[in-house]
């Protein structure tokens, strides 16, 4: 499930359109700029404008609603919880008071304003990142980060992680299915089943780690035969479209 959403966004970024062709450095700069503005500036207008812009971008590249909702909903729900919290907990001038189940809830103007601000900020910043990831393949992003002087080591590990996550994911899911077929994941809600499920999970983690470790040795050997000298990136093959 997690991989599905991951792959969908990833596959989407491979498409060819005006935005995917744009230099990743420009997209990163714009995203950071927009994020900074949303978070640093007060008011409701700016987040709304940015959300309108990002929404039209997503429409323009025909993003499936499934991706948008799948990615926007969880943070927005969380944002709504915070909105409620702030609305009730913030002190200031009271707007109205409610009696729910014997509890007296008071809503204050300042809380309402702050809650709305945070909610709007969340919505618009999630949409900014969504636009960035929908139009920028991770490797393009990696090279852009290098250009922005993000330490090479971090970018190299990022790109290796991106590459091998897919390989490990497939291996891990095979192990998980093999465990499931031998009833390694019974019902979590009864104690015996729960214990077994925890056990299977930790075994799966260990097996994936061991495979990763062994694969690293082979990958290193393969890199050596092609003249590896300690640098993994920087040998970018340029796109000539």
């Amino acid at each position, binding site marked *: 499930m997690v991989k599905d959403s991951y792959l969908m966004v990833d596959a989407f970024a491979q498409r060819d359109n005006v935005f995917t062709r744009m230099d990743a450095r420009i997209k990163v700069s714009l995203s950071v700029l927009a994020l900074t503005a949303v978070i640093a500036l007060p008011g409701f207008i700016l987040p709304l404008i940015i959300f309108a812009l990002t929404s039209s971008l997503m429409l323009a590249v025909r993003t499936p609603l499934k991706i948008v909702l799948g990615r926007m909903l969880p943070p927005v729900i969380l944002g709504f919880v915070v909105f409620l919290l702030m609305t009730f907990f913030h002190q200031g001038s009271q707007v109205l008071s409610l009696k729910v189940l014997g509890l007296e809830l008071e809503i204050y103007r300042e809380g309402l304003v702050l809650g709305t601000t945070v909610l709007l900020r969340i919505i618009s910043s999630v949409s900014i990142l969504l636009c960035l990831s929908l139009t920028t393949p991770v490797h393009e992003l990696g090279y852009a980060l290098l250009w922005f002087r993000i330490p090479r080591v971090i970018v190299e590990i990022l790109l290796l992680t991106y590459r091998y996550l897919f390989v490990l994911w497939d291996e891990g899911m095979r192990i998980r299915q093999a465990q499931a077929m031998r009833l390694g994941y019974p019902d979590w809600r009864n104690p015996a089943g729960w214990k077994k499920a925890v056990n299977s999970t930790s075994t799966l983690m260990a097996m994936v780690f061991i495979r990763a470790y062994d694969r690293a040795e082979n990958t290193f050997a393969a890199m050596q035969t*092609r003249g590896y000298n300690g640098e993994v990136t920087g040998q970018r093959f340029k796109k000539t479209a």
Partner: protein
Amino acid sequence: MIMEVHQVQYTYSDGTKALEGVNLQIPGGQFTILLGPNGSGKTTFFKVITGLLKPEQGDINIEGRPLQEFSREELYRRIGFVFQDPNDQLFAPTVGDDVAFGPVNLKLPPDEVSKRVRDALEMVGIPHLINKPVHYLSYGQKKRAAIAGVLAMKPGIIILDEPTAGLDPGGVREIMQLLVKLNKKEGISILMATHDVDLVPLYADRIFILHMGHILLAGTPAEVFSRKEIVRGAQLRLPRVAHLAEILANRDHLAVAELPLTIGEARKMILSNVNGDVDAYGS
């Protein structure tokens, strides 16, 4: 001789003796197959002759010079090694970046790097995948990309560990034809490991059988498969057609002078029996 191996021994740190005195010679320009069952030491042997593992004894000469005298760069300009699992080898995010890794490490100018990348991808038949992320490739495409990564170094010999493992029959044929093309057209010596006996007579000029860290047999496919007992004793078997011919000769008394190894040879043998034309295969 592009490669000579003399009395090479290798023992893993846990005490497992993987190679116990391996000798072999590989003439340049040939298609050589190293045949051996699982655990016979094929991968270890390849890692030793590519300088990835250091043998505790024995000599390895590449183009007449001892392996240890080569700098890493000199060595890997001459020898390319394709790992069994292409996922081990393809570590860069895109195909083009991965193929460029070797040439960039050779410190070639950018123009030469991109020329080599394009040529290599063209040679293995996937030029259109140059900007594709590796995880969107099929298994067969990954194998090709891995071979391209090695080709871009322009080695004189390419060593492949089980290049056909995990491929369907169509995929096996395509990869083998690619290797034959590299061998015949580009003049690159090929040394590949497999335990797929039926592949051998179709493609190999010369074969070696490796078993429990020893070379049991060496020679042309016909020479090696004529030693049936040794082949079978090494957890291997004859090619299917040869086995059929053996049964036809023993049980049905067909005239079989020399065991046919390929379908073409078998056809000739059967036709000569059917037509009574015993000249071709004797009586």
